[in-house]
C-alpha cells in the first residue's frame, strides 16, 4: 500500500498525459508506418517507410522545409537580438518606463489574425491601393513590390518581419525581468573599478542573463519550426499555391486541405519535424551547458 501511494497521487497527471500526449504520439508513429492507409475503410496495404520516402520527394514538402528553415534562421537570432537591444534600452530609461513596457508588450496580447489584417493593409496591393509600404517606397522614388502576391523574397521578407514582430514582446518581457534581476552590487563594483559600459555589458550583463537568452533561443527555435498561423494570416489558407507553406502547414494540408485524407503522409511529415526540432534543441542544450557558469 505504501508503495502504491505515490503512484496514486501521480495517477491523474499520468492518465491525462497518457491519453493526450503519449497515445497520440504512438498513434502518429503507427500511422506513419502504414502504407496506403485509407481513412474511410480504415485499411492499409503494408508496413514500411514508403510514407517518409513520399514526403521527402514531395516538392511541396521540400518547399515547406525550405521556407521553415529560412524563417527559423532569420527570425530567431534577429528577434532575440532586437529583443535584447530593446530590453537593455528599457532597463536604462527612467521616465515612462512602464508606458514603454506596455507598448512593447501590446503585440503579445493582440490576435494573430487581427495583426495579419494590419499587415495586409501595410503590404497588400489591391485594386484601390498599393499598400502603405509601397506608397512609402514610391514617394522615396523606388518601385513598389507586391509583398503578398509578388516575388518569393518579398513574401519571405513580410513573413519574417511579421514573425519577429509577433514574438518580440515575449522576449522583451523575459529579458527585461532577467536584466532587472541582476544584483545591483555587480554594477556598483564594476563602477568603482572604472569599467566601461561596453565592457560591463559584455563581461557582466550578458553572462549573467545568458541562461535566459538560451531559454529564449531554444523556445524560439521550437516556436519558429512550428510556424503556421502567421503564414495563413498573411497569405491565406492555400499556402502551397503561394509557395509559402511551412512544415506544420504541410501536415495540416495533408490532413484536411483540399479534402485532405492522408493521415499517413501527415504523420510522416510531423515525425520529420519532430526529429529536426529534437536535434536542434539537443545541440542548443549542449552549447548552453558548455558556456554556462
Amino acid at each position: 500500500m505504501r508503495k502504491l501511494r505515490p503512484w496514486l497521487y501521480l495517477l491523474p497527471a499520468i492518465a491525462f498525459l497518457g491519453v493526450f500526449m503519449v497515445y497520440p504520439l504512438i498513434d502518429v508513429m503507427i500511422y506513419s508506418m502504414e502504407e496506403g492507409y485509407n481513412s474511410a475503410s480504415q485499411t492499409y496495404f503494408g508496413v514500411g517507410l514508403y510514407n517518409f520516402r513520399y514526403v521527402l520527394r514531395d516538392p511541396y514538402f521540400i518547399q515547406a522545409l525550405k521556407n521553415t528553415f529560412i524563417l527559423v534562421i532569420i527570425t530567431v537570432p534577429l528577434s532575440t537580438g532586437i529583443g535584447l537591444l530593446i530590453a537593455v534600452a528599457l532597463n536604462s530609461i527612467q521616465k515612462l518606463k512602464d508606458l514603454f513596457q506596455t507598448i512593447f508588450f501590446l503585440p503579445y496580447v493582440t490576435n494573430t489574425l487581427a495583426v495579419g489584417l494590419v499587415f495586409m493593409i501595410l503590404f497588400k496591393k489591391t485594386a484601390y491601393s498599393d499598400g502603405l509600404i509601397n506608397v512609402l517606397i514610391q514617394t522615396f522614388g523606388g518601385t513598389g513590390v507586391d509583398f503578398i502576391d509578388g516575388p518569393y523574397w518579398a513574401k519571405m521578407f513580410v513573413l519574417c518581419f511579421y514573425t519577429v514582430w509577433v514574438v518580440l514582446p515575449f522576449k522583451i518581457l523575459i529579458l527585461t525581468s532577467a536584466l532587472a534581476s541582476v544584483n545591483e552590487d555587480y554594477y556598483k563594483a564594476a563602477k568603482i573599478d572604472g569599467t566601461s559600459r561596453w565592457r560591463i555589458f559584455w563581461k557582466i550583463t550578458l553572462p549573467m542573463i545568458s541562461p535566459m537568452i538560451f531559454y529564449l533561443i531554444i523556445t524560439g527555435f521550437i516556436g519558429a519550426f512550428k510556424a503556421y498561423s502567421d503564414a495563413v494570416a498573411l497569405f491565406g489558407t492555400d499556402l502551397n499555391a503561394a509557395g509559402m507553406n511551412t512544415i506544420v502547414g504541410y501536415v495540416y494540408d495533408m490532413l484536411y486541405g483540399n479534402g485532405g485524407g492522408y493521415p499517413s503522409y501527415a504523420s510522416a511529415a510531423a515525425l520529420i519535424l519532430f526529429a529536426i526540432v529534437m536535434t536542434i534543441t539537443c545541440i542548443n542544450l549542449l552549447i548552453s551547458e558548455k558556456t554556462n557558469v
Partner: protein
Amino acid sequence: MKVILEHLTKRYPSRDKNGKDVIAVNDFNFEIPDGKLIGLLGPSGCGKSTTLNLISGLESPTEGKIWFGEDDVTDLPPEHRGVGLVFQSYALYPHMTVRQNIMFPLQNLKGKDKLSKEAMNQKAEEAARLVQIERLMERKPREMSGGQQQRVAIARALVKMPRILLLDEPLSNLDARLRLQTREEIRRIQKNTGITTVFVTHDQEEAMSISDEIVVMESGILQQIGNPQHVYDEPVNLFVAKFLGTPAINVFEGEVKGGRLFIGGQDVLAVSGVEDQPVSVGIRPEGFILSEDGPFRTKLVQVEVMGRDTSVVSEHPDCVSGLIRSIISAENRVEAKDGNVAFELKPAKVHIFRKDSGVRIPYPEQERHV
C-alpha cells in the same frame, strides 16, 4: 591617505507627498587619520552605509565636501577616487574564476596605466597571497566557502592598491566562528598594507575589537568618534552608552539631590558638584561589587555561573532596561538575604545622563577611579 568629511549631508526626497526630506547623513564633520582602521557603527538605518557610499563616490552628497588628503574628491566619479569597496554580498562575478575576478579591475585600466598580461597576473597573485587564497586562483566563487569568497572580494578591492579601502558589513554573511577569524584577518591585512580602511557594521563587538577608532552614528547624526575604549568608558550620551557593551548597560530612573545619587530612594553614590535634577543612570554590568551592606539593594532573580564570571540577574522597580545584569568574579559567593542582594557601585562604571537630552554629566568621583 587621510579622509576628511566636511559638513557632509545627504538628503533624499521623501517618498510620500508633502513629506519632509529624509536626512540620511546630517552635517558630518570628522577626519579619518592616515593608515587607520575605522569602524562606522550604528543600528540599521542610521546612515552608515550612505556615508560609505558617499566616500566611495557611488552617491554624491547634497552638501559638504570630501577630501582625500589634499584632494577635493567631492565631484570625482568613483573610478577616479582610488577606492576599493568590498560589498556585503561580495559581488563576485559568478562566471569568472578567482583569478579573473581579481584581475577584472586591472583590465579596465586604459592608456598609460595599461598593464601587460604578465604584470596583471603578477599583481593578482600578489593580492591573492596577501589574503592567502593563492591556491584557489582557478576556482569559481560558488566552489568556495563564504570566508574564502570574502577574501577574494578583499583581494579584488586591493589589487589596484587603492588609497582608501571600504568594507560594507564585511562579516555579516559569515558564521560566528568565521567571523572571529575573518575580523582578525581584516586587521592583519590592513596592518600589512597600511591602507586607510573604513568599515561599516552594526555589531559593536566587531567594531570595538578591531578598530583604531569607532564612529558611532544614529539616525544620520554622528554621536561620538574616538578610540573604542575611550568611547566605551566615556560615552557622550545615553544612546552611545546603551549601544556599546555586552551585556548592555543597565539603565535606571534616578535623581541627584545634594551631591548624592538616588535610585528608588536609595542613596547609592556620591556625585559632588552635580545640580539637583532627575537623571537617567547607566550602570555597566561590571560596575557592581557584591557587598553585604552595600547601598544598592535589588531583588535577586537568578545567578548564572559562566566559568570565569558569574552573572547576577536581579530586579529593581526603577530599572528601565528590563532585568539588571551584573557580572562579578566567579570567586564571589552570591548570598541573598530575604531574596535581596546588595551591591556597592564603582563610580567609573556609573554614568549619569540628563533626563531631557540624554547628555552625560561628568562628576569628579568618576575621574578619580578611572
